């Protein structure tokens, strides 16, 4: 029986993936994609979907896992957004060459330059020309249906290419729409399991796509790849027709025409903006204007033949772009459209509009004006302005509260009430003072503090915090400022233990005199609490939920202090929000070490998170204190290889005291608590032994 429900686009996509019985799902959080992989984690934990779920350590790895899994013959899905998609870039190029028919959900969000979360196509723009099939959805129903259609298209041996399914962040990802969920049995019949023609599994195949191609064959294989994409056009149309027969919904293949009959002017749109354009066209038609709409559904393969056919009947075209190809005076769809029509029999005016960047709404009124301008061009037979930017006025937010303080941070923030990292950053900056540059890999703090700090604070790409710091430090060093300005990170645990580890390791090994402050809330809290490499054993997170088939995180956290000690850096310390004098002393020591140019100083502060650990916000400091007193978060420092416990409880408190108030541990059995208690005692003993036995090796 067909089910239905009101759901956000990300859930519709997750349902599509579930119905397609995807076998391997590598995952990594990024807004506004994260809930896709959270829903999938839920399906698996509930036992509704039987798939390998891989918590990856960054998008580069995530995409590589997807390609590897596809090469080994599985049906694969992963999804990402914006910066994450950019970080996948080189693997995306590889996926086309290895002919891996995997589906990548791209929840569109603006890329780079100025950080923002809203939808535009600057993220998918650099990925368009790497040999993938690239689809865009207008509605949540289309998201679900196309995820099924795309597997059928790309697993067809005439195609065998990876595909991107684009859905606009926020407009679709989080907006609720009515969606029909097809029956599993019918989907199973329509979409049989994927059978890889060439697998890297040596037990089933002795052929697989090669890594290298002889030089003289490169041009030939580019032609062949282009022919495959050419062939995919008919497969896309076939699959859409076939889908309509079975499921009753038809989308038009590469393009959908809307009220194009006897039109003089056409608007061209992609994605969710199309709905507003439909309404504008309706209005103009009711006013007697001959205007229509073409929704481009696939940017690759680009529907040039279709557009040529449609354009031959009209007098002008206006292309709405949520994408700017800087230095070309226009957007990507505009240029593709122009190129497609250049050799058409008759040349018509083509207008480009760049609108809705950074997630700005493109309302019906704007679509109406763009259509009006296109109609005018149709009438006049020429273009006045080739490309226009559709801009809106900006209302300044209320000014900050004037406040006098010697500290380099003002009161107030955008953090949650009772946020532990707000306590940490205040003391970090108080000790380091105003001559500090803060390099901030994306985390909650990226939202919370930039507006209230008096020091330069800039956002680093997630994987490259310590590399940005290195650059700043070396430049200042060159200018004789190495002992005048502190270069410090304020990084979360994901930006330290997972995606940021490589650049941190490099900076530590090179002996860069920078400070790394990691505030550890033991999950990816900025994206809503997904497990990280620093999430403790058994903790419930949104990607390690507690359900019938899964009971929280099943592996232990990384020991960051030991990892850093293996780099022989001069100063390593753990800190706590509950022991402020101890924390301030450690920050001062880190400052001294770097001021003397001795190398990297690493400070790892536990940040109890009321929002993500599920305890009342007034107990943040208490949780920190209990973590120290139970031995769950021992406070120590390693100075030039010598370990010293800086807070030594006479006797460790029972671990249950610390675990019980936190809902993320409420599912723990007595045996599990006992096991964790035992491990903590062993760890405590080993720290006590280290304290007396002398230096770490390598110092």
């Amino acid at each position, binding site marked *: 029986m067909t089910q239905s429900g009101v759901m956000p686009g990300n859930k519709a996509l997750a349902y599509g993936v579930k119905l397609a019985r995807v076998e391997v799902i590598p995952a990594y959080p990024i807004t506004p994609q994260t809930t896709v992989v959270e829903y999938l984690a839920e399906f698996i934990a509930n036992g509704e979907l039987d798939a390998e779920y891989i918590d990856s350590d960054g998008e580069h790895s995530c995409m590589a896992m997807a390609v590897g899994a596809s090469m080994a013959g599985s049906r694969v899905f992963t999804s990402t957004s914006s910066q994450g998609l950019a970080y996948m870039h080189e693997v995306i190029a590889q996926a086309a060459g290895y002919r891996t028919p995997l589906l990548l959900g791209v929840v569109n969000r603006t890329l780079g330059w*100025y950080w923002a979360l809203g939808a535009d196509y600057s993220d998918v723009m650099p990925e368009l020309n790497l040999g993938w099939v690239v689809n865009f959805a207008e509605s949540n129903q289309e998201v679900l249906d196309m995820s099924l259609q795309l597997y059928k298209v790309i697993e067809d041996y005439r195609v065998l290419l990876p595909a991107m399914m684009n859905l606009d962040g926020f407009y679709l990802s989080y907006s609720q729409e009515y969606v029909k969920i097809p029956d599993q049995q019918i989907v199973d019949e329509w979409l049989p399991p994927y059978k890889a023609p060439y697998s890297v599994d040596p037990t089933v195949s002795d052929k697989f796509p090669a890594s290298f191609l002889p030089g003289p064959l490169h041009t030939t294989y580019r032609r062949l790849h282009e022919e495959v994409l050419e062939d995919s056009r008919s497969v896309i149309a076939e699959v859409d027709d076939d889908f309509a027969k079975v499921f009753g919904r038809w989308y038009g293949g590469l393009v959908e025409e809307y009220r194009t009959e006897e039109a003089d002017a056409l608007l061209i749109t992609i994605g969710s903006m199309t709905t507003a354009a439909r309404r504008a066209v309706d209005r103009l038609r009711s006013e007697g204007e001959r205007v229509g709409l073409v929704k481009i559904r696939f940017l690759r393969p680009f529907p040039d033949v279709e557009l040529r056919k449609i354009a031959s009947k009209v007098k002008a075209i206006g292309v709405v772009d949520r994408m700017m190809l800087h230095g070309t005076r226009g957007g990507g769809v505009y240029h593709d459209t122009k190129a497609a029509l250049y050799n058409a029999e008759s040349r018509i005016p083509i207008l480009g509009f760049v609108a809705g960047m950074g997630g700005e709404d493109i309302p019906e009124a704007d679509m109406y004006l763009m259509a009006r301008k296109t109609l005018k061009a149709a009438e006049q037979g020429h273009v006045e302005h080739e490309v226009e930017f559709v801009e809106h006025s*900006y209302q300044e937010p*209320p*000014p*900050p*509260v*004037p*406040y006098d*303080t010697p*500290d380099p*941070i*003002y*009161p*107030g*923030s*955008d*953090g949650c*009430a*009772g*946020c*532990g990292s*707000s*306590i940490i950053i*205040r003391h970090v900056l108080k000790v380091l003072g105003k001559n500090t540059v803060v390099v901030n890999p994306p985390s909650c703090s990226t939202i919370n503090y*930039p*507006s*209230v*700090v*008096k*020091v*330069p*604070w800039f956002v680093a790409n997630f994987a490259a915090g310590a590399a940005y710091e290195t650059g700043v430090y070396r430049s200042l060093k060159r200018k004789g400022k190495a002992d005048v300005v502190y270069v410090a990170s304020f990084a979360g645990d994901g930006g330290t233990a997972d995606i940021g580890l490589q650049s941190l390791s490099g900076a530590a090994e090179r002996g860069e005199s920078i400070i790394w402050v990691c505030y550890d809330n033991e999950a990816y809290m900025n994206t809503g609490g997904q497990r990280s490499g620093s999430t403790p054993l058994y903790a419930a997170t949104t990607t390690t939920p507690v359900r019938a088939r899964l009971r929280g995180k099943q592996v232990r956290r990384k020991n960051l202090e030991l990892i850093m000690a293996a780099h022989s850096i001069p100063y390593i310390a753990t800190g706590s*929000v509950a022991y*402020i004098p101890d924390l301030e002393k450690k920050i001062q020591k880190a400052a001294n070490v770097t001021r003397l140019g001795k190398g990297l100083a690493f400070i790892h502060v536990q940040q109890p998170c009321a929002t993500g650990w599920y305890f*009342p*916000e*007034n*107990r*943040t*400091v*208490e949780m920190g204190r209990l973590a120290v007193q139970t031995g769950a978060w021992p406070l120590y420092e390693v100075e030039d290889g010598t370990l010293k416990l800086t807070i030594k409880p006479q006797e460790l408190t029972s671990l249950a005291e610390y675990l019980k108030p936190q809902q993320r541990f409420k599912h723990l059995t007595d045996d599990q608590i006992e096991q964790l208690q035992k491990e903590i005692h062993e760890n405590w003993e080993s720290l006590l032994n280290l304290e007396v036995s002398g230096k770490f090796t390598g110092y």
Partner: protein
Amino acid sequence: MNQDKKSIKGIYLTDLAAKGGKYVATWCVQIPEIDYNSCIKCKLCQEYCPEGAITVSEDGSPKIDYRFCKGCGICDHECPKKAIKMKEIEGL
């Protein structure tokens, strides 16, 4: 816009001099009140306040700037003398 005549075209600037406190009083459902008779001026409330909303005057006694208080209740919870009590905001 965040630009003056001298700034370079197309660069949206952060101006450190134009910053200040962030007004968050509207976040509260409850607010702390200090009982100065019980206060021992230990400054723990100031140390732990996530928002920097508590300052200490010259005589060592704490003062809450309610413009920056989110009402999290950490000061109340941590006060060793129970000299801070959370109070529901009337009319909410």
